[in-house]
């Protein structure tokens, strides 16, 4: 899959909650978006922010093929993402994409698939769920957050399929962490996809190992180049240190030393 450096024109900047925005953008030169796989990411150039020297890697949230729009869910966690979240319709953002490997789409349509997301980690699951459904699967979502307000894009997930929810304060769904949700004791899944904070992903991986379910997680190691050149974002795997940006960000947990 050929990677491109391209100027994108922002078509919308939608507030999701007070810490997150959904940016929609389309190639400024009018070209058609390349094929992107769920789980892939982009490297966004941050302009006008002295504290952001490097690009910011951001998961692809969704690709609206009809409108030729790329969606990126940005959580304001630092100076770089804060600046990116400020862009306005018509602004130009330079990105490199599509990067990384993406999640596996199983062939067997009978498999029960669980998509587990936490916080802004739900981002790639929107595209993954959509693609799985398109491919004839029936994905189920399990989304966790601190509070109801931190559940990002919940309505969009509900449009795709069934959604189970946990919040730490019980403001929506079951109280607790995703791994404590009752659906996990009631149902068995054949494949779990997970993206979220490290501790959450490790807990999910532990669960998957316990019940002997296939599991893919999307890692967020800090990276510089995004294209496998700098070797900064390595994860220690069964094959030694590998670049998360190139051989990941999605890894089958069997490859990880968690």
């Amino acid at each position, binding site marked *: 899959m050929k990677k491109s450096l391209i100027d994108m024109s922002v078509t919308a900047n939608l507030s999701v909650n007070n810490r997150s925005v959904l940016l929609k953008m389309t190639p400024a030169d009018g070209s058609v978006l390349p094929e992107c796989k769920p789980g892939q990411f982009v490297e966004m*150039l941050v302009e006008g922010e002295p504290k952001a*020297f490097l690009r910011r890697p951001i998961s692809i949230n969704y690709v609206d093929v009809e409108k030729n729009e790329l969606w990126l869910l940005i959580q304001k966690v630092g100076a770089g993402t804060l600046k990116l979240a400020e862009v306005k319709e018509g602004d130009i953002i330079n990105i490199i994409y599509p990067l990384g490997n993406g999640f596996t789409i199983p062939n067997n349509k009978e498999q029960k698939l669980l998509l587990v997301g936490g916080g802004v980690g739900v981002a790639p699951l929107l595209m993954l769920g959509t693609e799985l459904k398109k491919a004839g699967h029936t994905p189920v979502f399990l989304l966790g957050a601190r509070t109801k307000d931190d559940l990002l894009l919940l309505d969009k997930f509900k449009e795709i399929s069934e959604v189970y929810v946990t919040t730490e304060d019980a403001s929506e769904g079951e109280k607790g962490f995703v791994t404590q949700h009752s659906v996990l004791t009631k149902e068995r899944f054949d494949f779990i996809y997970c993206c979220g904070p490290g501790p959450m992903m490790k807990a999910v991986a532990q669960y998957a190992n316990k019940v002997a379910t296939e599991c893919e997680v999307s890692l967020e190691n800090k990276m510089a180049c995004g*294209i496998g*050149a700098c070797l900064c974002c390595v994860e220690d795997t069964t094959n030694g240190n590998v670049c998360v940006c190139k051989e990941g960000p999605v890894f089958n947990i069997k490859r990880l030393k968690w």
Partner: protein
Amino acid sequence: MVKTNVNIGSLKLKNPVMTASGTFGYGTEYSDFIDLSKLGGIIVKGTTLAPREGNPYPRMAETPSGMLNAVGLQNKGVDYFVENIYPQIKDLDTAVVVNVSGSTIEDYVAVAEKINALDKIPAIELNISCPNVKEGGMAFGTSPRSIEKVVKAVRQAYNKTLIVKLSPNVTDITEMARAAEAEGADSLSLINTLLGMAIDAERRRPILSTVTGGLSGACVKPVALRMVWQVSKAVKLPLIGLGGIMNATDAIEFLLAGATAIQIGTANFIDPQISVKVAEGIEEYLSRQGCHSVQEIIGGLVL
């Protein structure tokens, strides 16, 4: 039509722009973004005798106008390079230079010998300045005596263009430059990264797994320029300048300070097309300034 070709010893470059080791993979990582044949040369990843896993994650910290890295020479070793990488890159239409790293003189020599046998590799860059490995690397590059020893040994084993990459973490870089020159280096590249550190105040912990790492990016340019200028007055060898070059103007500053060629490092991470843009920008500058050849500005600083 401006002439942009330069020579580094017997190494001929079509223009002064090379890419720095450890920032450009084996070149192929960037072939989606640029036409590699538009570059003067590519310095591929640091290559050691035995495979190395490098340092644990985290290896990177962003700093004001720069970054720290602590990769620690992760690579699959010279034999893997010769068998698997070399065939993929040997026919690239640009000078492909191998960065040779090691922990002992014997290691450096062994790697240099193996690279010497590769027809399409016209030069090596001897990395005696990596701050991110426990043994060797920077230790070799911070004393004239050890520089003499390693350069002498490698010089005997390697008969093509030998570039020695200098560490900036020294009191007097001209001493190091003269030591390398005296033992037969054909060229010097400078600077490698400055040793730095980053701390996460909230967690009260170092950000890098190795605590310290190598600082690169725009922030180091003033130090790099100064060292290139000092060394250009101290030795006769052609120099390859690097350290914080983010655009063509930066590159031209290094040429004016006395570098015959330059390397783009960290800037590749921010703009994967920057190396070719810099080559084009140098040409534009030369035209605008009425120069017929890049030679006219090399060392052309007016005091």
